[in-house]
């Protein structure tokens, strides 16, 4: 019985081969080959930049360090976008708000 199932499963990868040119697929998953639009990709794990630097304190006076963490419009970027860890995000928001107060960073884009 088990031997019969193996040839049954084998054909699907065949049709998926011609469909493959759309993009390299690491492995044909059951159900995966049939749908062309969906492609599973491995998201790169984002690492907290402050943890990498082993930062104990985020200085609000260094606007150039804080700048990558705000949007063009002046909003603070969420953690899920930047990959900052919870602790550093907490410090970061405080630092950004202080910097905004002393006009080192904008509250909102002008005009």
């Amino acid at each position, binding site marked *: 019985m088990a031997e019969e199932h193996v040839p049954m499963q084998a054909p699907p990868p065949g049709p998926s081969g011609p469909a493959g040119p759309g993009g390299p697929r690491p492995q044909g998953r059951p159900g995966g080959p049939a749908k062309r639009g969906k492609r599973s990709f491995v998201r790169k794990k984002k690492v907290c930049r402050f943890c990498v630097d082993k930062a104990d304190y985020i200085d609000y006076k260094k606007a150039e360090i804080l700048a990558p963490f705000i949007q063009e419009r002046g909003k603070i970027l969420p953690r899920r976008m930047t990959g900052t860890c919870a602790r550093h995000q907490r410090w970061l928001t405080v630092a950004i708000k*202080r910097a*905004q107060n*002393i006009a*080192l*960073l904008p509250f909102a884009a002008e005009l």
Partner: protein
Amino acid sequence: MEERQYDLIFICRPDTPEPEIDKVIATLEHAATEKGGKIESVNKWGRRRMAYRVQKLREGYYVYMVLKSTHGEVVKELERRLKVSDAVMKYLTVRLDEELKRQDKLKRHRERRAARRPRKTAPAAPPLPTSGDQAAAQA
């Protein structure tokens, strides 16, 4: 009471002459010592572009100073003076000693861990002796 540390930043109008800025700094220093505080350092960042317009101006002359004091009265007095001063457009006082304390604590913690790590990695070394034992057994 424990000594507190503050960051004091103020922005002067960009067209104020240098001597006048020095005068503002001098009065602040004087006021601080009078109230029992101490200005540790003064750092003139100079003219720089502000992130948004303040009093319709795009640039400002930044002055940064570190203040140490045992009570908050000093800050109150200094802020009052900054508010009164015509040259000053904007100011900010931030109490920092607690954050510095935290920073210190984390640093010490990390150093302790770093000091302990060699001992932790040491147990990983044993494979070598065991292989040596095996070699001895084989011999």
